[in-house]
Each structure stands twice: as C-alpha cells, then as structure tokens.
C-alpha cells in the first residue's frame, strides 16, 4: 500500500471566482499551504476555474504535470462537478479521480467578515479533499440495455391513455386489466362533467383505439403475478384466460385507479332510497323515475373524517354534475346539496358550480360537528345562516362517498416494490417535483391510483406517465453514475435483509448464492444515497467514491 501511494500525483486548482472567494480568503496562503499537502505535486490559482481558460489550465495540468488526481477548490458540486469531471475525462483522466472542495458557498460566503478564520477553514476543507482524493479509485459508468416494451397495469381512462401514447410513439405495449372489459370507472358512469360527454361513448372510443392498434396487446381478466428485475429488464408473469405469459418488459405504468367507497351503516344507506353517487349514475344512465321530486345530496360521507382524513377531490364536482342532470331529466325536481366546502377548484368546475346555481340547485353548508340526519321522508340539517334546523323533503338521498384505494393496492405495491401512502394510494417519488414517477427507476403512476382524479386529470397524467416512461425507451439503454452501493465484503454479508427493507429505490435484493443468502445491488436502480451502507452493521456494503476508508481519511485530515 505505501509504495503504491508514491505514485499518486494530485493537482490542486484554487479558484478565485472573481472576487467571490479571493475577496474574502487569503489565496496566496492557500496556495502555499496546498503545495505542502501529501501527494500534491502541482498547485495553481485561476480567476475562474469554470471558464474556458480555467478548464484548459486543468487539462494542461493533467497532461503536462502527469496528474492522476485532480482537486478543484471552488464553488458547489451541485452546479460545477459535472463540468469538472467531464473535463478530466477529456484530458484522459478517469472522471472519478476528481474531487471537489467547496470553499465558496460553505466558506468565503459565510465568513466574509473573518478573513483569517475563513482561510483556516478553507485549509481544513482542502486538506480533507486532498486526503480523500488520494484514495479515489477509477469508476466506469454503468450501462444497461432497455427492453423496448411497456407494461400498463389497469385499463381505465388513465391506463388506456398511457397505452395509446406509447403505441403512438411506436413502442410495443402490454395492457393488463383485471376485469372483463376495459374502461374502468367510466363503464359505470352516465355523463361526464363538465362537458357532459357520454361516458360509455368515450370508453368505447378509447377501447376501440386501444384494441385496434397493432403495437398494443391487451389482456383482460388478467393479473400480474410476478415481477422480477429492474428498469429496462423486467420479467413479468401475467395470468390470463389463455394461460400464463412471461413477458420481457422495459418500463411499467401503474394505472389501477380506485373504487367508490360503500357507506355501509352511514346515513341509513340502503341502496334504494339512500344511495351513492355511483348508484345514482346508473339511475341517470337508465333514466330517472319521474316520481323523484325531492333529492338531497350529502357531501363528505366517509371522507374528511378521522378514519379517512383526505378530501377525495372529485365528489363535489360529481354531485354538482349529477344535480344538474337530475334537473334536466326531472325539471321540477328540487335538488339540495349539503356540503362542508364546495371543492369546485379551477376554471371549469367553478363555472359548472355557477351554472348549477342558475339552474336552481340549492346549497346548504353543514358543520361536521352537527351533521345532517336522514329521516323517513326528509333530511334534517342545521342551517347556519338561518340559525335553525331545516327539514328538506327527500324521496332520494344521495351520499357523496370518496374514491378509496383498490382492495388489492397492497398486493400490487408488494409485487412492484413501490410504496403506498397511509390512505392506500400509490406514493410518487416527490409530491411536487416527481408526481408521476415512483422513487424506483422504471416504474410510473397515473390517475386515481395516485389520488382521486377527474377525467381531464386522469388523461393528462396518463400522457405524462407515458412521457416519463418513454425516456429510457427512446434512449434504448440506461446509463447511471457509478457512485453507487457495492457489496464490498461479500463474506461479511449475512443476508439479513435490513438494507433491502430500507432502500427507498428498490435497488437491493437478497439472492441465494453458493455462499448462502447475500444481498445483491441492482446497479442501474441504485442512486447512491448510502442508506444501506450506513445501516449495514457488518460493513459489507460500501458506496463508490464515499468508502469508509475515504471518509475516515477525511475525518482524520480534519482532526490533524
């Protein structure tokens, strides 16, 4: 080991960043200091290391000074590490023999008033970077082929839209639907708000497009039973009516939708006089009995409560739509909607809401602490504006129940090793920035499987998920940075699986090997977060470019 170290030649480039660094730290002192660090054979200061001139100096240094490690002390790796890494590569040095030290954001900028102390801190940082650089090892990017075929699970509007999008881009798609027919919730609805499009017509149109497309294979009454592999290389078992299929898949979209909650035991629900919006859809589809003259709808039945705290987003729009459809079919029917907040967000919904008021749908706010009561002929509700109870005649009571997760959502979740949230909906990688991706590469989500969505949203998300999933298909391969977890000490691994359970990206699995149960890192799925290596009490796992040795060397350098 020591004699090998002799060969290490580290070049340190100190960036002034104009005056951002040089204005607050003593650069001459840093230069002199760096020259004396172990293995450092070359030190240079640059006005801007990231400018074309600066980059050329680094390349020149590598070639002329025979450097085999490069340290740049400058700004943040968030913006500049890729540039410096690739520049090293262009000069013939393995890009992973590069180390960056942040003496700007974490030093000169925060110690503008303390030149001396700031300079001392910069020295510590540089010493640590150099100590780590000496132990860096070359890495090669990891590449893996992608099977150009997508799997969509769930054939509702979201899944069908995603399927068609893949096919329109020229990719093969397999669509798996567990029911007999495609269409999902659409099959049970009458007309769709806000445009009052016929739901069956829309479903039929989509189904025709899907089943008629040469790139699409549809399995109905089918079930995914096993998913093995990782992005680009999944082996999927599908149980179909015509026997079991085993298909190679590149990417997967989850579009399993949701189901309407059945309000057993609430507000005298009996499926006859007291029904759900979903049951009302069927009545409306077949034509409402003309005897129905007084309808009362109650919102938030089974939602926004302790058990199910979320707002299901679409039931208010559904109620408003159905209230108008009732008035259309039975023009002299009275319809009242008892609500907590009318969630008519956006342009179209608010418009429909206003329209319904013009069409004389009545709205009465109720307090969940004092909920309405369904009585044999009427519904009693406390009217806050009037300050008293009110009896509303009701020959039909319609309960607006939320969309809840599919009963088998946890099965799908386990098959794909993707998480579900506390309400049973699938959990995206990032609520704001990755709404249609799972944290695990290669798997995507859309529609009510993610969270209750209306048709407009389900369609948009179906397109969006297909778009996200098409990226690896279009590239034909996935290339990932090699800064990932590796099983550095196979003998130490006891196959306990603690790391597998904690990995947020589904990048670890336990395999039975000749040496017994051992963890296996799916390198293209690993994002190098380090959770596994930090957890492994056997120190069997290690992260490239962040090995225990390298980190220890940094800590030691700091303490010296």
């Amino acid at each position, binding site marked *: 080991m020591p004699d090998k170290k002799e060969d290490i030649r580290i070049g340190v480039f100190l960036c002034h960043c104009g005056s951002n660094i040089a204005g607050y730290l003593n650069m001459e002192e840093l230069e002199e200091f760096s020259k004396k660090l172990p293995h450092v054979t070359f030190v240079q200061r640059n006005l801007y290391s990231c400018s074309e001139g600066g980059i050329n100096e680094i390349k020149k240094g590598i070639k002329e000074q025979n450097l085999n490690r490069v340290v740049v002390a400058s700004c943040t790796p968030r913006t500049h590490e890729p540039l410096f890494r690739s520049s090293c590569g262009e000069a013939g040095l393995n890009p992973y023999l590069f180390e960056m030290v942040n003496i700007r954001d974490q030093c000169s900028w925060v110690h503008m008033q303390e030149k001396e102390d700031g300079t001392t801190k910069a020295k510590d940082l540089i010493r640590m970077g150099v100590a780590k650089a000496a132990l860096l090892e070359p890495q090669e990017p990891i590449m893996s082929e992608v099977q150009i075929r997508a799997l969509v699970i769930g054939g509702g509007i979201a899944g069908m839209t995603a399927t068609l999008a893949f096919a*329109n881009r020229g990719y093969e798609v397999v669509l798996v639907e567990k029911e007999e027919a495609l269409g999902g919730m659409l099959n049970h609805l009458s007309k769709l708000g806000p445009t009052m499009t016929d739901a069956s017509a829309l479903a039929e149109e989509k189904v025709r497009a899907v089943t008629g497309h040469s790139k699409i294979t549809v399995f109905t009454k089918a079930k995914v039973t096993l998913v093995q592999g990782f992005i680009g290389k999944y082996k999927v078992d599908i149980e179909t009516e015509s026997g079991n299929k085993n298909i190679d898949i590149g990417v997967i979209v989850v579009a399993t939708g949701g189901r309407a909650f059945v309000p057993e035991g609430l507000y005298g629900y009996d499926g006859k006089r007291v029904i759900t919006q979903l049951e009302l859809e069927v009545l409306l589809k077949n034509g409402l009995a003309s005897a129905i003259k007084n309808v009362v709808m109650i919102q938030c039945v089974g939602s926004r409560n302790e058990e199910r705290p*979320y707002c299901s987003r679409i039931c208010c729009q559904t109620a408003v739509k159905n209230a108008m459809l009732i008035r259309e079919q039975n023009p002299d029917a009275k319809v009242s909607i008892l609500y907590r907040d009318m969630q008519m967000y956006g342009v179209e919904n608010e418009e429909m809401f206003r329209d319904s008021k013009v069409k004389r749908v009545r709205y009465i706010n109720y307090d969940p602490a004092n909920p309405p009561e369904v009585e044999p002929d009427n519904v009693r509700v406390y009217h806050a504006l009037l300050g008293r109870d009110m009896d509303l005649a009701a020959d039909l009571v319609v309960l607006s129940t939320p969309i809840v997760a599919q009963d088998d959502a946890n099965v799908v979740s386990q098959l794909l090793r993707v998480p579900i949230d506390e309400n049973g909906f699938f959990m995206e990688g990032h609520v704001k920035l990755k709404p249609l991706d799972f944290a695990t590469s290669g798997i995507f989500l859309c529609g009510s499987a993610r969270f209750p969505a209306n048709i407009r949203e389900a369609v948009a998300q179906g397109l969006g998920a297909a778009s996200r999933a098409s990226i690896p298909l279009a590239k034909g391969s996935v290339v990932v940075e090699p800064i990932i977890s590796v099983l550095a000490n196979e003998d130490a691994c006891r196959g306990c699986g603690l790391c597998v359970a904690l990995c947020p990206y589904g990048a670890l699995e336990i395999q039975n090997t000749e040496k017994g149960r051992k963890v296996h890192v799916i390198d293209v799925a690993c994002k190098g977060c380090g959770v596994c290596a930090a957890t492994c009490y056997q120190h069997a796992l290690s992260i490239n470019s962040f090995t225990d040795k390298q980190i220890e060397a940094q800590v030691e350098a700091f303490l010296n």
Partner: protein
Amino acid sequence: MLDVGRHPNIELLAYSEVENVEGEAGDFKVTVRRKTRYVEEDKCTGCGACAEKCPTVVPDAFNEGLGDRRAIYSYFAQGIPSTHTIDPDHCRQLNGKKCGICAKTCQAEAINFDKEDRIVELNVGAIIVAAGYDVFDPGRIPEYRYNEIPNVVTAIEFERLLSASGPTGGHMDRPSDRAVVAEIEALEKKVRKSQKALDKLEEKFNEPSAAFYKKFQAGQYQDDEDRQKWADKYAAHLAVIEPLEELKKKAAGFTVAKRLAFIQCVGSRDFRFYPFCSGYCCMHSIKEAMIAHEHEPETTSSIFGMDIRAVGKGFEEYKIRGGNNSNITYVRGRVAEITEGPNNNPIVTYEDTRERKVKSQEFDMVVLATACAPIKGIAALAKTVGVELDKYNFIKTSSLSPVDTTTPGIFVCGCAESPMDVPESVAQASSAAERAAEIAFQPELEKEKAVA
C-alpha cells in the same frame, strides 16, 4: 432549473421573445429575438462583481419592488443562466452618461455596450406554450385599499417577505415600519452630511454649534455673513434632527407582524373580475401562515374564505395540521372591506356566516390571495403562435385532450392553460412533452413505413 441548464439536448434561449411562427405540425419555423444583455453570455461567469460596483440603484422586480438591485443584475441568485444583464432603461452608460464601471470591474471582460439584439431562426416539430400567469392587481378592488394601506400586501409580496433570501431576510417586518426605517436611514444620511459641514465650521470658529447658535439667536454676529450661513445650516440641521428623533422613538416600538389575516378569492370567484377559482391560493395561504408561524411562534393567522379548497394529495391533512399546530383559524365568510386603524393596523370587516354577524377585527398585516390572472401579453403571444384563447384569455383546450391547443402540433401546460399548482403543472408538462414527442418523432415513423 439546473437540469435544464445542463442537459445536452436543451438549448436554453433565456431573455428572448418569439416573434413569428410559420409552418405546421412537424415543421414549424420560429423566429426568436434574443434581446441583448450587453453582456457576453459565454464569458460572464455570474460572479456578481459588476453589480457590487454599479452605482445605479433600481427597485428589484424579482422582490416585487420590496428591495433594490443595480442596473446590472442577475434576475435572482439561483437563476439559470447565471449571466448578468444590463437594464437598458437605467444604465448610465447606455443613457449617454459617463460610467462603464461594470466594464472596468469585470475581470472576465464580458461587458459589451455595443452588443445588439440577435434574431434566431429555429426549425422545430412541435411547440409547447408554458407562459404561466400573472397575479391579479388588487388595487382594482377599491374596498380592500391595497394602494392606500401599506400593511395590506399581496401573497406574492408576502412570499418575498418570508424568504430568507428576500428583502427582509425572512423577518415579518411590516411595510409601514420598513418605510419608517427607510426614512430614518435617509434622514440619518442627511444628518451625517450636515454634521460634517457643521464640524468644519466649528473647527473654523472654534466653538460648538449649539453654543454659537444660542448667541446668534440672542442677537450677536448679525452682520457676519459667514456666521449667518452657519446659523442657517444649524437651523436646517435641527429641523432634520427633531423629526428623526421622533421617528426613532416610533421605530423603537416596532415588532414583527404577529397577527395576520389572509383574504381568499381576491379577484377570483368574483364576477367583477375573474369568475373562476384560482385553485392554488387556499393552499398557499395555509402554507404562508404555517411558515410565518415557524418564523415566529407567537404568530396567529385568520384565513377568510368562502370554502377552503384543500383538494390535492395530502392537502386536507395539511390544512388540519395548520389549524392544530400553527394557530390558524379558518373563518367562513367574505370580507367586505379593509380600513386602516391605529398604528397602521389594517382592520378587516367581514360577515361571519356561521354566527350570522358582521364583525371587525384588527391585524398587524393583511395578505391578499390574489387571483391567477392570464399573463400579460398572452393575446399577442397566442396570435403570434397561432392558437385560440378561452373566454378568460387562457389557452383553449378541452377536457378530453387537456394539453392540445386548437392548432395541431402546438401544446400547452401549466397556468397558461388554466390555474393550477406546481405538482399539476409538472404533471401537465410531461403530458405536453408526450404529445409533442408524438409529433416530433412522427416523420421517423413515416420514414420507416415508407421503407417497409
């Protein structure tokens, strides 16, 4: 932003405008004006030395005018590209005065006062419009007195006040108080200047100004011209000091705003302006109230709304958490008017529809959740690009093809389509990218067919 700036397949034309679009789906010719920054983009490293030295101070549009910037500036610290830009309306050099300090300061030699606009022609298969929204100007609602009461601010102004990198460093300083502090600073500057002049005179006559002035007022030195000037100067000095002391006394009592009111649907769900619901404002008010409470645990907030629309994933839970942990009260009702009470405290008058009473309540600061308005210039942009608008001036789409405009090959996403929050904008952006890719890759498919 970083990813956009760095991606090899993305050519970023910032500070540019689309001037003309011709052609059809699969083959558009787009003319883009690259407005000059008077800074060479490939040379500028974004270090900011120029802005430090630039003598011209301009209100900072990024901070909603609540802070200042220089005539050479980067739009905001994390902006991509980090290139600086000279504001031609304010730069001295560009307005015929002698300056050029930035050019002398810039070590990268990136400043170029002669640089002109450039016209770029692009050939593209598909176009996505993502021009976003504007915030509604609440000055149009007379009863809220946004232009008259300093402590009535918009939500976007409040976001800047909450931001650690904003004009107050994240402190909930009230605009009326900040105005006083600014006045104090201006007066102190004046005082320092006059003190300097007085110092010289005191040295010259070897006497403190106060003592001299007493004598002067008693009738001495009446025909000494120099001393006459001295007396005038001293009188003027006193005339500044007195109000300054007053203001300082007042400022000593300033505390950060702790009693906040958030008013929903300002310009939204309002027939006079925008009848639609802007979708995201209920949530941003809750968020702002929660952050304000994190900054200052004594903060209490009242959110006045007709409905609190917490419809996204996890939103209802968030709203309840805000009520339980962040001293937020949700008040159902519409605010009738805002007036100004003592200490510049806004007073909110509203009808409590639960208790059926008209009530008034005093706050330290009122935040207006302004509507998501179609972006200025959208009509011109729509005309240039060749797409239709809906009746509110958002880009027209339909429920069943939510990102397709009225023109094939041109797609839309985000608030240019209709009001929506960030996750929905992000999801829609992917949808629009999908539709665009279907077009952009079509020719290849056709080629394949032709070969087969």
